[in-house]
């Protein structure tokens, strides 16, 4: 933007710049820039440097690409990537449509819409750690566990939930979906209110069914939001950490080790101090992958967006 301004207007002196409010703009922006610089950009820069070093945070030694090689040689990396992809896929299958259906249904009800919004958003308000501890209790694998008892009434189960290598990941996704759906519902609801009511009336006059209205009126208006939430969901699930860390610690037998948990293990998993070089190297690889993925996604979907 700055170059544009410079290209079209003659160069201003610092005095005119200050008089026209440039100084106050800078002063107002400064705290934000400092905070961002110190707490976001500086650590990012430091992480890039650390990924090429062997460091214990006191003494550092340049090791070239050794950290990246060590990460790629780690037998657990493949497992972590596969687990993360599995989590992302499950979260997509369950976590992506559920809020959408919820929001569409909620937008059609006329009474007590506020109450439904509150109910949908409530899990987001519960602190994540508390939610996980609560769900850990629900996931008690014994027949007298909360979920197993409820399912037992209809003759299903008991399920081992977190105590089984196959079941553990879907169990994490179930909780994560419950915890995150509320936020997405609110976004969809907001987008839905922007759909002009006369479009529905027109569709109704044309004899459209409920499904027809959703498909031909609602969805096209939601497309922009849907595209954004989709990529946010992918980025979010690729960085899943809280659930595996708190529920299973990556177990049983590494069935829920995710990329971020592996990064944490590299850095802090061992009491004797971690391999910060490997941790930052893997972080960087993940960041680059997600950036490339996002770029590709936006290029591919450029024509689909309404906004």
């Amino acid at each position, binding site marked *: 933007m700055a170059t544009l301004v410079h290209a079209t207007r003659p160069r201003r002196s610092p005095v005119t710049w200050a008089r026209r409010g440039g100084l106050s703009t800078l002063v107002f922006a400064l705290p934000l820039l400092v905070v961002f610089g*110190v*707490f976001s950009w*500086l*650590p990012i820069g*430091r*992480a890039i440097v650390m990924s090429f070093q062997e460091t*214990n*945070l*006191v003494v550092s030694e340049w090791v070239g690409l050794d950290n990246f090689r060590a990460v790629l040689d780690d*037998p657990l990396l493949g497992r972590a990537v596969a687990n993360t992809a599995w989590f992302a896929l499950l979260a997509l299958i369950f976590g992506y449509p559920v809020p959408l259906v919820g929001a569409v249904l909620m937008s059609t009800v006329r009474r007590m819409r506020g109450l439904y919004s509150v109910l949908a958003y409530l899990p987001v308000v519960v602190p994540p750690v508390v939610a996980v501890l609560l769900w*850990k209790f629900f996931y008690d*694998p014994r027949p007298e566990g909360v979920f197993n008892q409820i399912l037992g009434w209809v003759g299903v189960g008991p399920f*081992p939930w*977190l*105590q*089984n*290598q196959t079941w553990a990941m879907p169990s994490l996704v179930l909780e994560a979906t419950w915890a995150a759906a509320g936020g997405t519902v609110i976004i969809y609801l907001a987008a839905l209110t922007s759909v002009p009511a006369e479009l529905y009336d027109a569709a109704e006059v044309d004899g459209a069914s409920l499904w027809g209205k959703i498909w031909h009126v609602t969805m096209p208006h939601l497309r922009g939001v849907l595209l954004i939430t989709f990529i946010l969901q992918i980025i979010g699930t690729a960085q899943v950490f809280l659930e595996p860390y708190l*529920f*299973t*610690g990556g*177990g*049983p*037998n*590494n*069935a829920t080790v995710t990329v971020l948990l592996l990064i944490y293990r590299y*850095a*802090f*998993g*061992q*009491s*004797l*101090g*971690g391999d910060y070089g490997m941790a930052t190297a893997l972080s960087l690889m993940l960041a680059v992958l997600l950036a490339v993925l996002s770029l590709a996604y936006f290029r591919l979907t450029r024509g689909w967006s309404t906004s």
Partner: protein
Amino acid sequence: MRSPRTATALVLTSALAAGLLAGCANDDPAEDPSVDAEAGEDAEPEEITLSVVSLIPGSEPEAFAAFDERVAEFEEMYPYITVEGVEYEWRATTFAAQLAGGTLPDVYEIPLTDAKTLIQNGQLADLDAEFAQLDYANEFNEQLLAAGTGEDGHVYAIPAKSIYGVALHYNRDLFEQAGLDPDDPPTTWDEVAEYAAQIKRETGVAGFATMAANNTGGWQMTAATYARGGRVQEANEDGTYTATLDNDATRAHLEFLHELRWTDDAILADTTLDWGTINQAFAAGQLAMYTSGSDVLNSLMETNGLDPATYGLTAMPLEGDDAGVLVGGTLAAVNVSADDATKDAAIKWIDFWYLSTLRDEQQAVRDSQVRNEGGQGVGTPVLPIFSREQYEQELEWKADYINVPLDQMTGYTDVMFDQPVVGEPSRQTQPFYGLLDSAVQAVLTDEGVDIDALLADLNEQAQALLDSE
């Protein structure tokens, strides 16, 4: 990420310490039985605040009250020191983050096996000068002291709290309900399996459980390997090490766990159990037997409110030619950024809180009295930090206040000094435990697990860890 936080912590620490002079003169040496007052320092020492480990988070209020009482007595002895207790439980998976984040107290506890590397990394304060002040500095068990001594011969970490041998803990009530004699605990692994199955059959409660997470599963798997005559790594003549996870003893114990899980359904199928949570489950009556350090009753009483009447302790069954008991323990260390004044206050605290209670009659009696009144265990069997004679002397001093049921622990106390002991693996200890965690989790969650293939794979990873050194 961490850097700003570390920097803040450092600034705070230095600000706190700024201007504090290294004063360690004690006005009345008579009050201070074991620390030599330094001659020639008459100046009143400057006020200092020392943060120390108090109890495990979630401990009983009475235990905290007892801690506060002892702190008050310490502060009376050294009016210029203000002690700030910080709740703390050492965990392999969080310690490094706490250390890097600067959130550990000034005086904290580390396992015996970690000291050497922490010293090498320059992460522990040099306590040599302060250690020399202790008038019993020469009386420590040499091997234990060596664990906290650096290559420069300086002492960086001091044996403290307790040295334990791994033993078998059991719930006497569940034994009785299952028709077993609680005074006749199992002495072989086959009997452990048999008893566990019977308890499950008769009471519906899991007969056995094992830690499986946060490296504690591997720690107990190693203890079981030792008890069955195996080792998880071996030193070669050329100074290198060979991983031996793929040994018969480890295999036998994994098969034992697998059978308890899938044939008898007699084991608590929870792969998230670690040191703290298995204690909780045991105190809540969810399992009848488990293995852990011999001193765990203290924690069961002060943190989990266990009624000692239901508690039984017996020795690990030892089988095989080279079987031994895994021993481990705790060292007290001081934050590397501590200045001389902090280190001096720290050694006074280490002396008062951890060691004088083992060596000084007055302190031993007082400490056991306060602990007894606070419902904390007194007399729980541990291995001696100094010598067996000193340990027996200490128990004699504390006799009036012993509140743990020693007659329910004879299965262990009768043999504790006769069992061969084996130290924890000396190389890559925690990463080895981490690998074995996944083995324990695999046999508990996969009925069709191929134990041979599993161990072969883990052994390869373990060897890679050793080769990377």
